[in-house]
């Protein structure tokens, strides 16, 4: 076999929605003068058996090597000449007219998208929903409690309790308002209304506890290392701001460090304002109890540990979540070294 013949043997393949298309790689490079698409052909029988099968096939192709940068074998083909999908589909008997081609493809694309969508609610997305629900609940509880205190204190101004205990008090013994010396006389129907109002708020507290334990459960399952470093709620908030565990794992730790301080960051970039040292991660006790001078450095070390733990969680086997103790010990070492390097400033803070 001559070299030229050998070259001619080199055949490549790729997936089209209606079947596997083969092409001759050698034609792709040279000036092709004949019929435009003659070197493309269907190498296998088209997958026309059922549209369900086709959409399964498409999903596998669409998600094929999600982590691959590019599919190199495809590029040369498409840089030179493109296969004519319509002609091929017509040849294979899948569609007779253009309209039929479009409507068949559309039906399959819709089915495929539906399946992809129904599979898109992953565990980390559930955590995101839950942490946003938690914010909604907190806001609602505060709002309703404020109104309750405002109203009930007209009957019982002497009552001074923290908010949850206040709500519990009104729910249990609203009639004790009659002991008040300053309060307005409490009519029975007024108290009944306020009591049921308080009952509603208490049920929201229950709901909040349920959401919190849901977040804790899911976080320990899907992101054990992140929960270890950041804690369950901050970890969930980080996931929510990044848009998922995958996104958080892909973020540079510098972005994680200032996530939640976007306004300050933009101000810094636009003018010569100082850069923000920390965003949402400031809510972690490691940062908000740190000496002021060291906060920037500690924030940097902490964000690096968060990023490392998110990556560990995302890229390790999800069926067998394990905590890597090195991340936390490494972070603690780093922070101790930082604190030792600046003892004088530490002392200043202490004084």
């Amino acid at each position: 076999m001559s070299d030229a013949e050998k070259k001619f043997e080199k055949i490549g393949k790729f997936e089209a929605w209606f079947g596997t298309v083969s092409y001759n790689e050698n034609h792709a490079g040279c000036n092709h003068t004949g019929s435009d698409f003659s070197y493309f052909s269907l190498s296998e029988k088209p997958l026309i058996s059922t549209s369900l099968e086709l959409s399964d096939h498409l999903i596998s192709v669409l998600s094929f090597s999600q982590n691959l940068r590019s599919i190199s074998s495809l590029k040369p083909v498409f840089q030179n000449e493109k296969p004519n999908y319509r002609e091929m589909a017509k040849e294979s008997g899948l569609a007779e007219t253009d309209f039929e081609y479009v409507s068949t493809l559309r039906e399959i694309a819709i089915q495929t998208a539906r399946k992809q969508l129904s599979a898109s609610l992953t565990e980390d997305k559930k955590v995101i929903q839950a942490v946003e629900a938690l914010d909604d609940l907190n806001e609602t509880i505060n709002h309703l409690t404020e109104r309750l205190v405002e109203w009930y204190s007209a009957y019982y101004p002497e009552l001074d309790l923290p908010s949850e205990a206040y709500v519990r008090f009104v729910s249990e013994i609203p009639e004790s308002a009659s002991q008040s010396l300053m309060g307005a006389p409490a009519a029975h129907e007024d108290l009944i209304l306020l009591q049921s109002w308080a009952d509603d708020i208490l049920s929201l507290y229950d709901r909040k506890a349920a959401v919190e334990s849901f977040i804790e459960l899911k976080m320990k399952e899907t992101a054990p290392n992140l929960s270890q470093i950041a804690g369950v709620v901050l970890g969930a908030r980080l996931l929510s701001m990044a848009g998922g565990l995958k996104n958080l794992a892909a973020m540079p730790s510098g972005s994680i460090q200032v996530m939640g301080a976007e306004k300050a960051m933009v101000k810094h970039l636009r003018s010569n304002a100082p850069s923000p040292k920390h965003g949402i991660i400031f809510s972690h006790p490691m940062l908000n109890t740190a000496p002021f001078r060291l906060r920037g450095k500690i924030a940097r070390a902490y964000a690096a540990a968060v990023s490392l733990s998110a990556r560990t969680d995302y890229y390790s086997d999800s069926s067998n979540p394990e905590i890597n103790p090195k991340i936390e010990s490494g972070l603690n070492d780093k922070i101790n070294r930082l604190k030792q390097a600046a003892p004088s400033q530490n002392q200043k803070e202490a004084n």
Partner: protein
Amino acid sequence: MADFLKPYSNGVYEGRMRGKFQLYTKSAAPNFSVYGEKIMKDDDGTEYRSWDPKRSKLGALYQKKIQIPITADSRVLYLGAASGTTVSHVSDILAEGGGVVYTVEFSERPMRDLVMLAEKRDNIIPIFSDAARPELYVPIVESVDVIFQDVAQLNQAEIACKNAAYFLKDGGHLILSIKARSVDVAKNPKKIFTEEIKILEKNENAPFKILKTADLAPFHVDHMGVIAVKNSRK
């Protein structure tokens, strides 16, 4: 055609709404408002859907009296389809001539709306994939006449070039909406626009000739519309 409208461009009509200039497209799926747009009815029941330039980059380009290379028989690849506000109007334009629009969207929430829109219209092909990774949807998309892109990503021009290399016919058109604020919040938008255009002109796989650029203000701030044609590789 209704007497209150007159033709404006391919498949697009102009009329008035509360005395103001307003674009319309002939609805391909009557009795159905996609995003709460106003609908005008003809005597024979034909519906015309108003097209708000403030909610659509393409609508803004039309309203700016720029020649848009989409005809009724075009095959369009629409990148960054979102929930299908603009896609529905493109679908209207294509409905009469058997054109088809391949819509790519990456985000789940808008994708659900887009799928529901595609169920109602027979020329929309929804693709749930990343516009920056055209190799993933090669199996679905044939070569197209027009690529419309509105993705608000950092590397908007590169995404356009990559997709054009895969799917755009030689001599096909690219309609690109560049959002300066997603490239760099701090830089001067004008600088960003020149840089992005340079990327389009200089790229190897799909060299472009810029036909027209237009600032989309006052409808969209810091956005520029670009119409370009893909030169054949020689």
